[in-house]
């Protein structure tokens, strides 16, 4: 055993010599062999060996200088941490956020706030008007703004008053004067401003102290992404959507707070969790829904109160965007595993009944729906019915021009046709050049359009946008900024 130790004693002291064996076997020689750190070293190799950070590299005599070939580099870099991932729901909130003002945009000096009758007067056609703060809050509460619209580019959210919007507001006003209900579907090509027309109608309603109930997306009700439950004692069975209805009730409450506080119940509702007596403000009735379980009974009570005959009620606007989604068989399944028709969902049925004319508001009102061209399932019955109504309106009840059903096609839906049998249709297309010019002047005044607004530019953008389709004009002029 002693021979290797003796031989080792002759070797130059170095950290590379294995020292574990001598330490146990012969502690006497350890002091010599254990000298690990020389005070200085004369060669690069020794300096490298004494560096404690270098692991296991000491055994080889030669250290390669300069670049080395690195194999499998993708694997080695994969361990880099990428920071904290976003919390659940954070990405969606960012995607769906709505910005209504831009501090970098130039304030437009001549921009006037909307008044109660501004949207209904013909002298405002081809003018841009701003939404007052209060109406902004109300519209935001009822989710009238969409993330795809360009609100975030300007100092204040403002609207272009079109010929069609004045027409629609006048129709709404006329139906309220006659204490009737306007039932109308806004339709038209892609990005022609159908949702914006609904928003204008809602703004008009808020300014004139109507009660507004708005379903922002029809698809949220029928694509089986919110909870549902059968309503007991209904034949055929209807389904409520408690979570969605609770959200809707809260939106109604926030948007119509002032009017609901001034409107009172005519009958008691002892079946609700809070006993509601006659002459309670409707706001208190809305507040009775705290849990999803009680949301549908409360909503039904509220609806019965709003449609109560002979009571003193403000006019009511009921609106829905994305009509095609509620005019088809939904993605929900009944307990017998059959698909549920959308009109068997209680909230959708409430809307379609109103659109079909089964509901009468005591002070009149409007039931509006807008179709969507981007995200809409095919609904042949709806398309056919709307085409028929439109033909009847324009041709003055001449049956020859009215499109008829294809006798060899089976996909029609009688319930949809029954709902759309007597609605009015408002078709939106491009705006006129005058309106286009007003809008472009507003863009230019906000500093968002860096061009002189003259006949030539307006005509160019108007033509590029397929004779004044508003969304295309935005794409042509606003969203392709060449600064």
């Amino acid at each position, binding site marked *: 055993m002693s021979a290797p130790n003796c031989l080792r004693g002759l070797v130059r002291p170095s950290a590379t010599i294995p020292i574990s064996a001598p330490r146990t076997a012969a502690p006497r020689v350890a002091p010599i062999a254990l000298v690990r750190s020389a005070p200085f070293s004369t060669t690069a190799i020794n300096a490298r060996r004494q560096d404690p950070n270098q692991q296991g590299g000491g055994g080889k005599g030669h250290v390669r200088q300069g670049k080395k070939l690195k194999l499998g580099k993708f694997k080695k870099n994969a361990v880099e941490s990428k920071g904290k991932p976003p919390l659940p729901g954070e990405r969606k909130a960012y995607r769906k956020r709505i910005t209504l003002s831009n501090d970098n945009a130039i304030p437009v000096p001549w921009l006037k706030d909307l008044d109660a009758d501004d949207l209904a007067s013909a002298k405002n056609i081809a003018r841009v008007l701003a939404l007052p703060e209060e109406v902004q809050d109300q519209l935001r509460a009822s989710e009238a703004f969409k993330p795809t619209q360009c609100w975030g580019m300007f100092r204040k959210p403002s609207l272009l008053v079109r010929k069609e919007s004045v027409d629609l507001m006048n129709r709404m006003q006329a139906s309220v004067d006659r204490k009737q209900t306007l039932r109308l579907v806004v339709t038209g090509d892609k990005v022609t401003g159908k949702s914006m027309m609904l928003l204008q109608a809602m703004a008009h309603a808020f300014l004139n102290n109507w009660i507004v109930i708005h379903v922002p997306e029809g698809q949220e009700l029928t694509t089986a992404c919110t*909870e549902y439950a059968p309503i007991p004692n209904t034949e055929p069975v209807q389904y409520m959507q408690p979570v969605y209805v609770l959200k809707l009730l809260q939106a109604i409450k926030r948007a119509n707070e002032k009017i609901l506080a001034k409107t009172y119940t005519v009958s008691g509702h002892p079946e609700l969790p809070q006993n509601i007596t006659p002459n309670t403000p409707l706001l208190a009735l809305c507040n009775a829904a705290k849990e999803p379980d009680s949301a549908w009974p409360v909503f039904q009570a509220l609806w019965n109160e709003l449609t109560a005959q002979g009571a003193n009620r403000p006019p009511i606007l009921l609106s829905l965007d994305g009509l095609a989604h509620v005019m088809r068989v939904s993605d929900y399944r009944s307990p017998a595993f059959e698909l549920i028709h959308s009109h068997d969902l209680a909230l959708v049925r409430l809307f379609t009944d109103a659109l079909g004319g089964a509901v009468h508001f005591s002070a009149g009102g409007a039931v509006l729906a807008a179709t969507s061209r981007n995200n809409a399932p095919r609904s042949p019955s709806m398309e056919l019915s709307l085409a028929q109504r439109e033909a009847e309106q324009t041709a003055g009840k001449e049956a020859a021009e009215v499109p008829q059903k294809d006798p060899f096609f089976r996909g029609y839906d009688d319930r949809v046709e029954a709902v759309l049998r007597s609605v009015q249709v408002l078709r939106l297309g491009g705006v006129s050049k005058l309106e286009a010019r007003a809008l472009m002047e507003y863009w230019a005044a906000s500093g968002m359009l860096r061009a002189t607004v003259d006949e030539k530019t307006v005509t160019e953008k108007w033509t590029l946008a397929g004779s004044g389709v508003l969304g295309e004009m935005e794409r042509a002029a606003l969203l392709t900024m060449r600064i």
Partner: protein
Amino acid sequence: MVFIFGVNFHEQKLVKKALESFYALGPQTSARILAKYCIHPRAKIGTLPPKTLTALTAELSTMTIEGDARRIIQENIKRLRDMGTYRGRRHAMGLPVRGQRTKNQTETARKLNRIERRG
């Protein structure tokens, strides 16, 4: 954490996925169970009321899933083997049963084809 049929699930897990985690319960059956209790397909476990959870557990306990379903399959294989069929022998040898070639890859067969089949 929520218990369904004695198994602990995270509250953020989809009900559909939780049901399909049981052996012998696939997309068809889970869709029917969801419809039976009026649960929408994108529901998470955390949103279910306790009443529905107990009903689900009761429903699952009446079905042949997990151990029962495994035993049925094992019995079927055992029966083939006891009769001395070609399929039974191939199962016992851990080789492909349905005429596949065995020159190269028989990983699935080696994993699954045995008398006391695991999954």
